């Protein structure tokens, strides 16, 4: 009899532990952003122009190179940084100069930033400069959008067509 009571006690202790583990496996709920908020996600990968134009090599320069390595042009690998501005209803949300990736600075510039904003209607304006110019922008888009609670509003850029995408 005592053996059974002891066994029940042992089972009760183990069950208590396991039930606590089962409860904590999905509770309490974690809320990443305040209720009634939306997320604007600015993300794209885009390579700006090379820092300098390709240059034709002289025959003397070509002759210096081993026969199997010879080429007629020398193109510098490094890319320019990209400058981006994101405004939300006239308010500055993001301003940044995005350097090219890679050790040699020849990769694409990239950005991945989240902004938590209250749900509602906004004018979203995005501008980007990816050429040597110092004034004005090469790509831009401005649009009125309505953000619903929990919405993930993505601002992306398509390099092939050179246009910003809102989705």
């Amino acid at each position: 009899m005592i053996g059974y009571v002891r066994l029940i006690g042992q089972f009760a202790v183990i069950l208590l532990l396991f039930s606590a583990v089962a409860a904590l496996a999905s509770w309490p709920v974690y809320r990443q952003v305040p209720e009634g908020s939306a997320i604007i996600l600015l993300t794209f990968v885009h390579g700006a122009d090379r820092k300098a134009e390709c240059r034709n090599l002289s025959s003397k320069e070509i002759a210096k190179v081993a026969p199997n390595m010879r080429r007629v042009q020398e193109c510098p690998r490094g890319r320019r940084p990209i400058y981006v501005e994101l405004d939300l209803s006239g308010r500055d949300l993001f301003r940044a100069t995005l350097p090219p990736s890679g050790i040699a600075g020849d990769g694409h510039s990239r950005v991945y930033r989240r902004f938590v904003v209250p749900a509602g209607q906004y004018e979203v304006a995005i501008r980007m400069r990816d050429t040597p110019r110092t004034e004005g922008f090469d790509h831009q888009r401005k649009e009125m959008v309505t953000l619903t609670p929990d919405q993930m509003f993505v601002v992306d850029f398509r390099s092939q067509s050179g246009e910003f995408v809102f989705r």
Partner: protein
Amino acid sequence: MAQNGARMIAAVRSVLRHAFEWIERPLDRLFGPALNPVAQLGALGFFFFWIVAVSGIYLFIFFDTGIERAYESVENLTNKHWYHAGVMRSFHRYASDLMVVMLVTHMLREFAYDHYRGTRWFSWFTGVPIIWLLYTSGITGYWLVWDKLAQYVALVSSELLDWLPIFGEPIARNFVSTGTLTSRFFSLMVFMHIAVPLFMLFAMWIHILHISRPKMNPPRTLAVLSLVALLAASLWNPAVSQGQVDLSKAPVAVGLDWFFLPLYPLTDLWGNGAVWAFLGAFSLMIALMPWLPPLRRAKAAAVDLAHCNGCARCAEDCPYEAIRMVRRTDDLPFPTEAQVNPSLCVSCGICMGSCPSSTPFRRSEELRTGIDLPDYSLRELRERVIATAGTLEGPARILVFACDHGGGAGHLSGAVPLPCVAMAPPSLIDFVLSKNLADGVVVAGCAESACYHRLGAAWTEQRFAGERDPYLRARVPRDRLKTIWASALESGRFERELAAFADAVAAMPATASASPSLHAILPAPEREPARLPEGSVP
């Protein structure tokens, strides 16, 4: 600075040890030392691993690895086949969580009981990769369900990885809009969720390599109780999905698994860089713990070939795999001899207690045995016993063999301290009682479920019960011998049991022979018993 750090670590260890004692001793009474779950953490970790593996294989039968159908297949097995596949899903999830609980508690307990320094560094150090592999296994598993929690895990995990400057394009971009994620990426996750646990099993095998008789399976009763409790918890609170992924919606509110994902909310609070810094610093600190500060060790056990007949009892009893039997190197007619690996030996003396040559009855001037501790030899032990017996007074003269790590460690009068009670060969008890050096003997070890040298309590019990060589001879009156298994924090209980035993012995008829002159037993040299270096653990 270094001394302050060491003092702080010792203080944390002491607090944790008190906490474990507070939990373990009542569980000892409920479960008994052999079934106490806190003393079976490693074995339960293995047990839950196998449950996760078997339930995972079962779930894989029903799981569709394509990204479009993964969620549906999990919903199908959870709802339509709840009575087998659904239960298996809960087994899979909760056993994984329990693995985390076992791992963390096991790590804290080994730290609390100072089971991670000295020769034990190997098991501790090789346990660090297991933490990373277990978490990687669990996180990739949550990904596969492809519900809102999976979306959250995918986003936060990839944002964390993107912080490291190793990927050309942010991985997190794959999870921000429909169509950007392909089944190929999902297949990679499936592969990782299978491959990483296999690596973990390999790491677990390495983790126990230097442990003699590792506990890889819990006692059957504990295993059955755990399985039934897991089934009950699975039926009470089955593991379910949290709604299908909608990449146009942010996974803003999710029911987190707080065992696998406690650091994920910190990415919002601290940022990804700080979380990586924390993980790196934590892993480095844990990995270096065995040397913060290193354990000062006494000299390793030494074999005296003239007294070793290659019986292999020392190799059998060593809890650290520090002794192996090798081909004989002298002219004696035995095939093997014991060889000690000094880098694995902790000088616990259990080998000395197991050696059939370790008999104090020898009258030779220079008492020697087959395997001995240079810092605490059998000869010195016998001298200490005789010297201590000479100080015993009162109606019942009780001699205590006190483990350095147990409840009797602080008992000063009439006690012979030992690094482990299994160091005392059973013939020494016989010697004490048959030579009438004392009216009773108490062997005071650690708590039975928390033996500092893992097997000392078990070997002692088995030797006394005649189940393990060397046996305690039948002529030894058992009513004059008592074992008290009490932790260092149970000195009060030790003293009470000792007093009760002394009363019981006092009520017994006097032994036939009068106490002999100590010099009649042996010509004990007039010198102070040698002491171990301060702070060392023999």
